[in-house]
C-alpha cells in the first residue's frame, strides 16, 4: 500500500493536480473559445522561472513574487495574444509553439538570470514546517478545484456563450455587434495567466528549476489528456489527466512490479500508446472518450 502522506505521494499528486489545472485551462482556451494554444509550456514555464527569479535573485517576499510572476505572464500573454489571436488555427498553432520554443531557448541562454542548464534553486515551500509539502498540495488542490468550478460556471454564462459563438462562427458574431477581438484577447490573457500561476506554484513543487522542463513534452501531454478526456467538457481535462498521466506516471509507476529490463520499456510504451490513442480518439471519438458532452447552451 502507499502511504498517502509520504513525500513521494505528495510530490506525484502535486504534479498531477498541476496537469489537471493546465488541461482545464486549455479546455477553456480551445474547447470553449477555439484558440489553438500549443505554447502551454511557455506560459507555465515563464511563470515558474519568473517566480523563481523574483524570489531567489531579487529576494522579494513570497506572495509578492508570486503575484508579480503571474502579472508578467499576463503581460506576455497579452502581447502574444494581440499577435496570434487573429491568425487562422494552423498559424496560431505554430506561432504559439514557436513562442514556447523562444521561452525555453532564452531560459537557457540568459544564464546570468536563470543559471541556465546548471539550474536555479532551491525554491522553498510557501509555509515552513514538517508538513510544508502537504500545505502546498492543499493549496494546489483548492486552486485546481477552483479552476474546474470556474470552467463549469463560465460555460453556462453569457460570456461563455459569446466565446462559443466566436469559436463556431466569428464573422457572424462580429456582425451581430460583438467585439470579438477584445473578448478573445482578455480571455486568452486571463487563462494563460492562470497557466502561469500554476507554473509559479510548480516551482516549489520541483524546488530546482532547469530548462529541460520547458520542452514541448508538457504541452503535448496536456493536449493528449484534453483530447482524450473531451475538449468541450469542463471535466474533460480532469478525466483526460486521470486516464493518462495519473495512470502511467503514478499508478503504474507505484504499483506495477516489473523486472528492470522491462521497466525501461514502460515509458516508451506509454508514449507510443499516447500517440495511438490520440489517433484513434480523433478518428472515432472526436469529442473525447465519453462522446459528445457539449453544454446545451453553447449551440448557436
Amino acid at each position, binding site marked *: 500500500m*502507499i*502511504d498517502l502522506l*509520504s*513525500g*513521494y505521494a505528495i*510530490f*506525484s499528486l502535486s*504534479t498531477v493536480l498541476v496537469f489537471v489545472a493546465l488541461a482545464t485551462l486549455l479546455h477553456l482556451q480551445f474547447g470553449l473559445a477555439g484558440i489553438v494554444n500549443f505554447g502551454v509550456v511557455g506560459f507555465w514555464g515563464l511563470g515558474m522561472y519568473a517566480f523563481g527569479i523574483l524570489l531567489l535573485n531579487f529576494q522579494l517576499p513570497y506572495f509578492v513574487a508570486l503575484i508579480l510572476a503571474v502579472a508578467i505572464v499576463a503581460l506576455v500573454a497579452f502581447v502574444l495574444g494581440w499577435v496570434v489571436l487573429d491568425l487562422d488555427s494552423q498559424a496560431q498553432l505554430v506561432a504559439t509553439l514557436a513562442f514556447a520554443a523562444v521561452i525555453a531557448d532564452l531560459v*537557457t*541562454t540568459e*544564464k546570468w538570470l536563470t543559471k*541556465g*542548464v*546548471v*539550474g536555479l*534553486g*532551491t525554491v522553498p515551500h510557501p509555509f515552513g514546517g514538517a508538513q510544508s*509539502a502537504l500545505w502546498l498540495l492543499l493549496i494546489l488542490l483548492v486552486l485546481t478545484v477552483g479552476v474546474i468550478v470556474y470552467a463549469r460556471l463560465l460555460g453556462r454564462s453569457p460570456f461563455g456563450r459569446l466565446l462559443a459563438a466566436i469559436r463556431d462562427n466569428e464573422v457572424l458574431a462580429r456582425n451581430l455587434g460583438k467585439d470579438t477581438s477584445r473578448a478573445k484577447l482578455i480571455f486568452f490573457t486571463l487563462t494563460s495567466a492562470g497557466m502561469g500561476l500554476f507554473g509559479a506554484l510548480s516551482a516549489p513543487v*520541483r*524546488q*530546482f528549476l*532547469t*530548462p529541460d522542463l520547458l520542452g514541448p513534452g508538457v504541452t503535448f501531454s496536456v493536449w493528449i489528456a484534453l483530447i482524450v478526456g473531451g475538449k468541450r467538457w469542463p471535466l474533460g481535462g480532469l478525466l483526460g489527466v486521470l486516464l493518462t498521466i495519473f495512470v502511467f*506516471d503514478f499508478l503504474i*509507476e*507505484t504499483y506495477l512490479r516489473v523486472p*528492470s529490463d522491462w*521497466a*525501461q520499456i514502460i*515509458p*516508451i510504451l506509454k508514449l507510443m500508446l499516447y500517440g495511438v490513442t490520440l489517433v484513434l480518439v480523433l478518428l472515432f471519438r472526436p469529442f473525447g472518450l465519453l462522446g459528445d458532452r457539449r453544454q446545451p447552451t453553447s449551440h448557436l
Partner: protein
Amino acid sequence: MQKLLTSFGVAAALLAGTAIASAEENPIKLGHLSVHTGPYGHFGPHFDGASDFAIGLINENPPLGRPIQAFHQDWGTLGEGQVARRLVEQEGVDILYNISHNYESYRDWLLGFVAQNGRPAIPSVFAGSQRVEWGGTPEEPMFRGSPMDTAQAAAVAQHAQSLGATRVVIIASEDSGMQMSQDSAIKAAKVLGMEVLADIDIQTEQTSYRSEVARANSLNPDAILVFSQAEEGGIIVKNAAEMGMSVLFLGEPNWLAEEFPRTATMGAINRQKGVYIVGYTHSDSPAWDYFKEKWEASDYARLSPAGDSYTMQMYDMLNMTALAIEAAGTTDAREWANHVREVSMAPGKKVYSYAEGIAALKAGEDIDYEGVTGSYDYTDTGVVSGQFAAFSWNSPSEWEQTALIDGTAVLELDAAPMPE
C-alpha cells in the same frame, strides 16, 4: 497414519525452509538511480551491468551475512526527485545509489529522512558535480566515487598546457555538467597563464557544428578544449576535418565511448594535430589485475572495456560501501558514514579487493582499501582521490593511454581561486 506422517514431514520441511529463508530474506536493499530514457538513456544498461557485476562478487561473502539486492530504477522520464522518493519511501532502500545532477532538488527532504530513519546511505559515482562542501558526514552520508568534476576539467587544461598550448578556445554543450566543467577549465587555464580566446556554448542534439567550429578556428587557437557528449564531440572533429582544419583537440571522458570515433570517423581524427581525451585511469596494483581478470571473464564484459572509468568507479564504490557496512556492524547510514574513511584509508592492512577486505574485517583486522581507480582516500566531505591520464583512439574500437597526468598539480589547480 500415512497422511499424518506426510503432513508432519511437509510441516517440518516448511519450517526448515523458512529458517533458511529468513537469513536470505533480509537483504540489504540498494536503490539504483539509473537512466534508461532521455538524453542519457543509452548509459542505463552499462551502469546496471557494472553495478550487478560488483554486487555479484560482494554477495559471495556479503556484509553482515545479508546479500545486497539491487533495484535499478530509470529516472529519465519522471525525474530524479520522484524516483528517489519512491525508492526510499516505497521500496524502503538502505542505500540510495548514484544521486546525480538534480540532487539539490530533493536534498532537503532526503537529509530530513536520514535524520529521522537512519537510512539511506548515499554513495554516488556522479556526485562529482555537487557542491564540494556537501557530504562525508553522518548528517549527510553522501560519498563520491570519483574526484570532483571541476578537478577533472582542470586536468584537461593542465594537459593542454603540457602539450604546449598557450591560446585556447573552450567549447561546452548546454548541459549542466559540461557547463560547470567549462567554468572550471576557464579558471584553470587562466591560473596556468594560458589565454582563453573564447568560450562557446553549443546546443545538444545538432547534426552539425560547422559554424561554431569555424568561429573557434578563426581565433587561431593552439588547442580547442571541448566538454560534450561523444556524438557531439565526434561531429565537431568531423566538421573540423571537413573544413581542412588540423588542430589540437582535448575532450573529456565521454569521448571514450565508441560513439565518438564512429561519428567523427578515424579519417577526420587522424587529420587533426591530435585528439586527446583526459579522463581517469586505473592504478597499477594487484587491485587492477584482480578486477580486470574478473571483469573480462564475466557476462558483463561486453558492456565496456575493463578500463572504462564508470565501470571501475562503480566497482570500487560498491566495494567500499559494503566494507564500511561490515565495519559499522549496521546499515544505519549515520554509523556507516563514520566508517568509510576507516576502511578506505591508512592505518590498516592494505587490501586490493572486496574479498580480501571482508575476510580481513571478519577476522577483526583494520583495513585500507586500495581501489582500481586509485588509492581510494577520502576528504572530510566525501571526495575520493583518483588518477588522471590522457588517452587517444587508435581505431573505432580501441583507445590507449598516452600519458599520466600529475594528480597533485591538478588538485592544486582545482583549489586555486580565479585570478584577477
